[in-house]
């Protein structure tokens, strides 16, 4: 079924990054990044820590500012114009390593907040949408609880539902399972796989290589702020070209 999903990739370009560079002070974190993502594509980004993979996807919704080059999301050029940034952010959903749910709001309120205030959806309709997506991530019964009462896996699934309530065209995942216990990783990955099968355009920073094999169209390996290698998952895992990729893969797959 994953194979069937892969066929949905269209020619339409969702994200186009050209010659993008970013510095933290004098430190050159991202160097000449070129990346084109088509609609429906699912990309897994991996690499050692500090390689700039999180920074890369955080540049796509302008949580981080880039200094050189261009990023175009859904045909909108990311500039310092706040209107463009807000437009892109409302089209691009994001899930964080530490979930970042709003602890002072219930699960339902977490999910309805952005649709009500950003999309101006009527409250009742927003709640229906929220319940729809909470059912999709299989926790509709927790809607009235607060995030602090949920397990990590449940919180991350709420975070996914919260993003989906904005009906994003692109989803970014920043190490969504790194802060979870092994048994909770599965429930989150299952949710993400389901999302992938529906043809969502996804960029996912993760070390879950099983997930990459199953759903990714493309795996990108980054090191020291550069894209070192990218390929289809089969070729990437079975026949890595660059020595750095080989070393990385032998380390994470070796144990």
């Amino acid at each position, binding site marked *: 079924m994953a194979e069937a999903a892969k066929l949905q990739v269209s020619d339409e370009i969702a994200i186009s990054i050209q010659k993008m560079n970013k510095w933290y002070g004098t430190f050159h974190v991202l160097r000449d990044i070129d990346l084109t993502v088509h609609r429906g594509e699912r990309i897994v980004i991996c690499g050692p820590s500090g390689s700039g993979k999180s920074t890369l996807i955080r540049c796509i*919704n*302008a*949580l981080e500012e880039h200094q050189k080059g261009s990023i175009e999301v859904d045909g909108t050029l990311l500039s310092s114009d*706040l209107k463009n940034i*807000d*437009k892109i*952010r*409302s089209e*691009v*959903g*994001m899930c*964080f390593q*530490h979930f*970042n*749910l*709003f*602890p*002072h709001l219930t699960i339902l309120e977490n999910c309805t*907040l*952005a649709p009500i*205030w*950003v999309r101006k959806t009527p409250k009742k309709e927003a709640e229906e949408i929220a319940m729809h997506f909470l059912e999709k991530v299989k926790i509709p019964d927790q809607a009235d609880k*607060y995030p*602090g*009462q949920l397990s990590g896996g449940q919180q991350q699934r709420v975070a996914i539902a*919260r*993003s989906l309530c*904005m009906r994003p065209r692109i989803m970014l995942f920043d190490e969504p399972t790194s802060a979870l216990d092994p048994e909770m990783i599965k429930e989150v990955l299952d949710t993400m796989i389901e999302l992938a099968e529906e043809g969502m355009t996804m960029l996912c920073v993760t070390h879950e290589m099983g997930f990459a094999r199953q759903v990714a169209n493309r795996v990108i390996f980054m090191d020291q702020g550069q894209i070192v290698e990218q390929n289809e998952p089969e070729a990437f895992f079975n026949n890595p070209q660059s020595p750095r990729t080989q070393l990385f893969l032998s380390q994470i797959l070796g144990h």
Partner: protein
Amino acid sequence: MSDTHEHSVAFVRTTEIPQQTAPSSAAGPVKWMRDNLFATWPNALLTVAAFYVIYLVLSATLPWILGGLWTTSSLSECREVLQGRSAACFSVLTERWNQLLFGFKYPAELYWRPTLAFLLMFIALAPVLFFDLPRKLLIITGLFPFAAYWLIWGGTVWIPVFALVGFVAGYFVYARFVAQNFAAGFFGGIVAAAVVWYIGGFAVAALAPATPFLEAVPSRDLGGFMLNMMLGLTCVSLSIPLGIALALGRQSSMPLIKWICVIFIEFIRGVPLITLLFVASVMLSYFFPPDQTVDLFVRVVIMITLFSAAYIAEVIRGGLAALPKGQYEAADSLGLDYAQSMRLIILPQALKISIPGIVNIAVGLFKDTTLVSVISMFDMVGMIRGPILASTDWNGVYWELFGFAALLFFVVCYGISQYSQWLERRLATDHR
């Protein structure tokens, strides 16, 4: 058979053992006393010693309080009645009751007006303090300052009406433009309000009747505990929003705003409140034309508000700093704009963290309102130190007067503190 049965492990109960009352050593007051008062020898000794101290204090104060006189008309009369016996002379409180509450110049036949304002205050505060009440009640809260102003100061009704209209106009302009640009809405609102007030100034002069419905009372006639309550309530409710604005401004990425806030906060925190009050009472008038001056009450409110706002700003900054960066990022990533993410995500959490600190400052501010007595405003302490103790009738009654003042302040401050603890429990959703 019976032989084997005795050694068998099998057992079936056929009768219920009825529940019995616990022995007195395991429950009830005896156990409580043994656990808490006489657990060990040193513990028992301390208990006895503590009871002795309590006895000493009460045996000295209780007869003094209970034997107090309430109906004499001067301290010398008290002394005559007591004939050397030691007892309180509370008559000063009954005789000067109105002066303690309203000051010595507020017209006696108008006491109902501040009293009514005081009662309205509870209705106005209720929806702010208890957010389970219907939100529509906030309209009353919004109208209260204008109604209270009219009741306490009296005079033409058009002044509070135009003040209110100015705020409403400012709000509508703000709401109209804020969606496009926060700064445009903010400054547009201020300009709109200022225009209304400017026009209102002429309108009031034209509309004001010769004899207003409520007789006008000048600010210098206000006094007593009423003045403390007015200063406390006004300054707390003004300094919290100003403190929030300063705290957010200090975090701003715009250097100009950031530095204005930093300099303001650091300057105010480095100056004693009493200096600011002297500036308000004496020096500010040098900056106005001789025929025009801002009311002393307003000047004092401004100074106390600025003073506590600087402190509240720092407390809130602590709350903002305590929030994980992820909360800002999550709000950003959902496409909320700055005003929305602050109002819906950041401030509700930061303010919750800051509650103890804000309450601390609010309580301190309320007690600091007694400092206005040094710039010859007759608040409660000013009344006691001035007109009451200086009178020949009551010269020398210290304990009763200051004890009463302490009691009134304690009641209000303890109330604030209890409310804040209730609020913290009510807002606890993090389930740690």
